[in-house]
């Protein structure tokens, strides 16, 4: 905000209104903006440059883990749509991830071009989302949690016994070649995943501020009142499942070629739980929170892997501490700190 002089002159809007816009909004247009103020634009530009340049300076295994973070961030985003926006719990998102990953690998094995396999993965996962979303309409709270948990385990069982996708031995997923350009290297594949993830982040941000996003949140906060205002509960609840499953499927399609080899065991209940941890630890109901949570959980796991026997204990303790100390999550805490300084001394 302090060094935004030149940017303010470039825009016709009065400076006073823009200065207030970080904390308070006084027009609908301000509410629609994804990035607010010069500081916001500077931060976004810095983040974009950092994401683009990182593989040039970082070591191979760090690039690999960054790619993994981006894939997990996609799944966390998909859960943020389902759990954060519409308030439907899913303990089976590893199932959608698996569906996407297996669909991509199976289609690629048939010789279908890479971009089409991505679409296929999204379609398969979204279809599964519809299959789960429609019966889930009647369920809420613990019943939905257990039903989705069952879905995740059932997918694992099916993959474990299905010969076509290699049963328990698994399936090879190769890194893609698009229009003659190969993405075999870790850095090249990172850039591909980063591009897709950025696009989905923008898409979900736009979804949130659209009428659909508002309907999702209305369904979450007061389903009966939403229904009275003409929002079809069944339509929007199942739509949330389809969108969420589709994004998770896309994440799966990126996940397969990253790790190179798919086995049913890798899509276990613990993975589903980890995705849910990301959303809640990052800040439930806040889209950037999903990204923060994905980064935090992935980073924490990587860091704790050096602790060996202690890692699970510390992981559980950290998760509990975050939830006990800050119910609105890491990003929620950051918002509180930022708003405190912005409005100081009030």
């Amino acid at each position, binding site marked *: 905000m302090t060094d935004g002089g030149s940017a303010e002159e470039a825009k016709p809007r009065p400076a006073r209104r823009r200065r207030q816009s970080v904390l308070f909004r006084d027009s609908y247009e301000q509410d629609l903006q994804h990035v607010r103020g010069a500081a916001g634009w500077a931060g976004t530009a810095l983040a974009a440059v950092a994401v683009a340049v990182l593989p040039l300076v970082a070591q191979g295994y760090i690039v690999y883990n960054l790619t993994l973070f981006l894939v997990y961030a996609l799944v966390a985003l998909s859960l943020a749509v389902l*759990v954060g926006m519409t308030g439907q*719990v899913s303990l089976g998102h590893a199932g959608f991830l698996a569906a996407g990953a297996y669909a991509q690998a199976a289609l690629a094995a048939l010789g279908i071009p890479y971009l089409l396999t991505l679409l296929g993965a999204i379609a398969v996962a979204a279809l599964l989302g519809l299959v789960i979303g429609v*019966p889930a309409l*009647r*369920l*809420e*709270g*613990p*019943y939905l*949690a*257990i*039903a989705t*948990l*069952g*879905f995740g*385990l*059932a997918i694992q*069982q*099916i993959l474990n*016994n299905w010969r076509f996708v290699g049963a328990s031995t698994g399936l090879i997923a190769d890194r893609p070649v698009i229009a003659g350009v190969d993405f075999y290297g870790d850095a090249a594949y990172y850039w591909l995943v980063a591009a897709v993830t950025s696009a989905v982040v923008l898409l979900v941000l736009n979804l949130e501020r659209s009428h659909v996003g508002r309907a999702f949140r209305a369904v979450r906060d007061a389903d*009966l*009142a939403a229904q009275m205002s003409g929002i079809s509960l069944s339509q929007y609840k199942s739509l949330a499942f389809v969108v969420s499953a589709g994004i998770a499927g896309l994440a799966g399609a990126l996940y397969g070629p990253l790790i190179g080899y798919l086995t049913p065991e890798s899509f276990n*209940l613990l993975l589903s*739980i980890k995705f*849910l*941890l990301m959303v*809640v*630890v990052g800040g*439930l109901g806040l889209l950037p929170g999903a990204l923060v949570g994905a980064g935090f959980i992935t980073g924490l796991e990587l860091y704790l892997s050096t602790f060996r*026997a*202690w*890692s*699970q*204990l*510390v*992981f*559980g*303790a*950290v*998760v*509990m501490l975050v*939830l*006990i100390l800050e*119910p609105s999550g890491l990003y929620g805490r950051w918002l509180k700190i930022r708003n405190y300084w912005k409005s100081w001394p009030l």
Partner: protein
Amino acid sequence: MAAVNTFGEVLQVLVSGATIGSVYALVALGLVLVYRTTRILNFAHGDVGVLGTFIAFVLFTNLDLPFGVAFLLALLAAAVIGALIYLTTVRQARTESDLGLIILTLGLALFLGGFDALVFGTDNKVVPTLAPDSIVRGFGASFSVASLLTAALGVLLMLGLWALLSFTKLGVAMRAVAQREDVAEAMGLPVRTVLMATWGAAALLATAAALLFAPTTLLNPTMMLDPLSKGFVAAVIGGMNSLPGAVVGGYVLGILELLVGVYVSLEFKASFAFLVVIIVLLVRPHGLLGRADVKRV
């Protein structure tokens, strides 16, 4: 496979199903007990049970106590641990969302699992049965004494819980807090103590289930993963806020699962439970004996 369908064979399947069913029912009872008072799906339930079983194992092997005594001491220790867990984590959480509390118990489950692995090791340990593993024959079938005792102990514990909730002051207070916590507090009930007792009782049930289940598998930190998910299924089939529902769900699931394993296919047995839960929920979204929460607008 289903060539000979004698009465004895069916009886044997029913008894074996009831044995594993009583483990599921005990797990489900603990889950429902916690859910209807604090609205928490307790994913740490299994790990509390495993911790109690490890305590019994240490008392039995390292201190050379008789297994029956170790069993009872472990149950008591688990009750204390359950109460402490409520006091130190659940009560401290300032989150108001149900999901936040679920995640808290997931964190607790990871913590307890990590603790078990660190202190007791991840290798498999053999837990003895309460009775020598002899066989009795009758009605054209043969039953193991140990599994009959497991089923009997399960029933005994369930009757004990029923007696506690029906005939004691504490039990009535537990039911009152489950029904309306704010009113119970306004009437002067010590809600914190009652909730500690509820979590303690649930931990005791979890440990009993784990101790009865342990001889059929081997003791390790992830032992309760399958019984816990089956316990959730049983609780959901019965209705998350109905204690009789949890018992019914546990036995129905145990027997159905074994029938499927024997007469349909063994591979299908593992995922069968989740097919049952989806079918039951499609017909009755709040379980067989559960009731929908009435919402005020």
